[in-house]
């Protein structure tokens, strides 16, 4: 067990070997279903162009506000939504999510952990039932004796001990943290190699959040699972994931090693997130004075039905320029895997970006 206070290693070396799960230029538009049949098919452009790689034993965090499309990304990777464009590769083999057979084989490797512990378990079913379904579906256990044995192992793995006591409990007899552990155990039942965690701790009490995060870290390190960690809290992204990518209104804005992206943010939006995040070490006086520009809609992400052209952040960006309204900026690499899509850097303007007062 990792001791408290021990510096987490492996957070800064680069990924080794081939990515387990690759997403290349995924795009997702949801048709806005008009009630009247003849209505023009308006579309919600949820995710514009997403690429990311998941490596065994490492975690990539996807950070963004509500409505940024981060959950849609997770659902695309979990085969719940079918991407409008772009492709998905598992162990370098393209995955055709449309075919039921291939999807089922893919789902044996990639499991989803849901956000709300109170609705991710069927209230009328016991913990035993929840674990037995995946075990039987994937053929890991054929009869109830094998199911019980493997279920007990799973409960031990998520430290719900004494396991036998939890086996026949109902969801309403468990606390939020315990329910989340059961849904993690359910995900582990199919012996996956990739776990997609959609804000696994944001609905939990502060004191038990770290227990769940540490459990997931243990699974990452000891079982070598690859993680996608979706969150709106950059501090937990830095704590949990080696890689972080930031999304805004369906567009990728910045990415790279977590420590680098969060402590030395380059994209104005990441800086805004950094400045806005509650930081106990910062005194109350300079309460984010630099952040509150006078843009009336300053705090609201744009609607995704007809999003603004070019970089969708230009409405709220203190450094917005004319070019930002026309075209989406190309990617600029800052070395060490740290990149950002922003005209401040990409259209090689000579303007020297003033050192932002916040951050590193």
């Amino acid at each position: 067990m990792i001791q408290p206070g021990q510096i987490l290693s492996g957070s800064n070396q680069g990924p080794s070997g081939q990515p387990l799960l690759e997403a290349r230029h995924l795009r997702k538009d949801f048709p806005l279903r008009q009630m009247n049949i003849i209505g023009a098919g308006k579309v919600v452009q949820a995710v514009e162009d997403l690429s990311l790689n998941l490596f065994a034993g490492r975690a990539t965090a996807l950070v963004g506000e509500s409505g940024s499309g981060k959950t849609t990304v997770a659902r695309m990777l979990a085969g719940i939504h079918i991407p409008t464009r772009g492709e998905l590769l598992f162990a370098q083999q393209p995955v055709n999510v449309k075919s039921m057979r291939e999807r089922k084989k893919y789902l044996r490797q990639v499991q989803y952990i849901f956000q709300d512990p109170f609705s991710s378990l069927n209230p009328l079913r016991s913990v035993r039932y929840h674990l037995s379904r995946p075990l039987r579906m994937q053929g890991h256990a054929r009869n109830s004796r094998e199911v019980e044995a493997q279920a007990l192992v799973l409960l031990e793995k998520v430290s719900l001990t004494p396991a036998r006591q939890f086996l026949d409990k109902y969801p309403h007899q468990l606390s939020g943290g315990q329910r989340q552990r059961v849904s993690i155990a359910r995900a582990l039942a199919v012996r996956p190699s990739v776990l997609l965690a959609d804000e696994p701790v944001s609905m939990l009490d502060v004191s038990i959040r770290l227990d769940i995060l540490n459990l997931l870290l243990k699974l990452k390190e000891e079982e070598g699972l690859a993680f996608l960690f979706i969150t709106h809290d950059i501090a937990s992204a830095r704590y949990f994931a080696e890689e972080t990518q930031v999304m805004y209104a369906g567009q990728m804005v910045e990415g790279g090693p977590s420590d680098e992206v969060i402590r030395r943010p380059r994209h104005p939006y990441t800086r805004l997130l950094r400045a806005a995040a509650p930081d106990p070490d910062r005194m109350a006086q300079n309460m984010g004075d630099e952040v509150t520009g006078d843009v009336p809609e300053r705090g609201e992400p744009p609607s995704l039905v007809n999003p603004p052209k070019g970089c969708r952040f230009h409405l709220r960006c203190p450094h917005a320029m004319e070019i930002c309204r026309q075209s989406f900026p190309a990617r600029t690499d800052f070395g060490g895997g740290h990149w950002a899509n922003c005209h401040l850097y990409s259209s090689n303007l000579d303007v020297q970006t003033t050192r932002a007062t916040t951050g590193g």
Partner: protein
Amino acid sequence: MQATNLTDQNLETATFLSSARKGGRGVFRAIVANPKISFGVGVVAVFVLAAIAAPLLTPYDPSAHVITTGVSRSVPPSAAHIFGTTGLGQDLFSQILYGARISLVIGFVAAIGSTLLQVLMGLTAAYFGGIIDEILSLITNIFLVLPGLPLTIVLASLAKASSVGQNELTIAIVLLFTSWSYGARVLRAQTLSIKEREFVSAARANGESALRIIFVEILPNEIALVASTFVGTFVYAIGAEVALEFLGLGDISSPSWGVILYWAQVNGALIVGKWWQFVPAGLCVAVLCASLTFVNFGIDELANPNLRSERLMKKKKKSVVA
């Protein structure tokens, strides 16, 4: 249709059912504990027992003409004839007992059939969504908006005219087809809300089949609602069946509550003051329907505790400060 609107019944109440599911005993204890349900079920049980044990309770054959002499064959209630006799001198008490069988059977058959139809329409529309949902909802809403009883009257009278003939089964089927729409809409609404819950997407991501998700994962969480719409349909069916028979669309030869009232109306019992020809039968219908509606309120309170009348809580100590 007396079904109460349970669309906003939230899932937490399902935990009540699951906590009562420690074994059959748990559910039974929960039902008996609720005063409204136990009272309602008790009264219905009395009717059912009376209907079954009819031959033991009354010596007369319901359609036999017992009173054949005297000024009028219709005698007021007396020791011999607890509820008096009909215009043709038949014993009303036995007619009501045997009649109970018909009303209960027709009501039950229509209610069961209608509930199955409601579950089928509601759940498939909600689960599959898209075009299927549009079409099924359109049909449901049309049946909901069209006035139920007139349609039933038209169907029943045409059935009577054609060779299908006039028997309880046709009435039950007619009632079935005109009573399912409200329940289907309510069930669809709730299934839509449950479908969004994450344990359903978890099951789907796990590769479970759609059928299994609907009937094993979603339906059990709606038992309270299905029970409530079943009882609501039962009440509607009884009311409609009695109304049809009152209009003479039932089998007027076989004694049932509606037919008793039909003959009361035809013989002008009202004008000549022979109240016993329509009061007992009417009361039976009212008491049965009321007790069933009571069961419905009990189910509502089981499903949505804050509907329970506050009075029970007030018995506790008065609070220090208002």
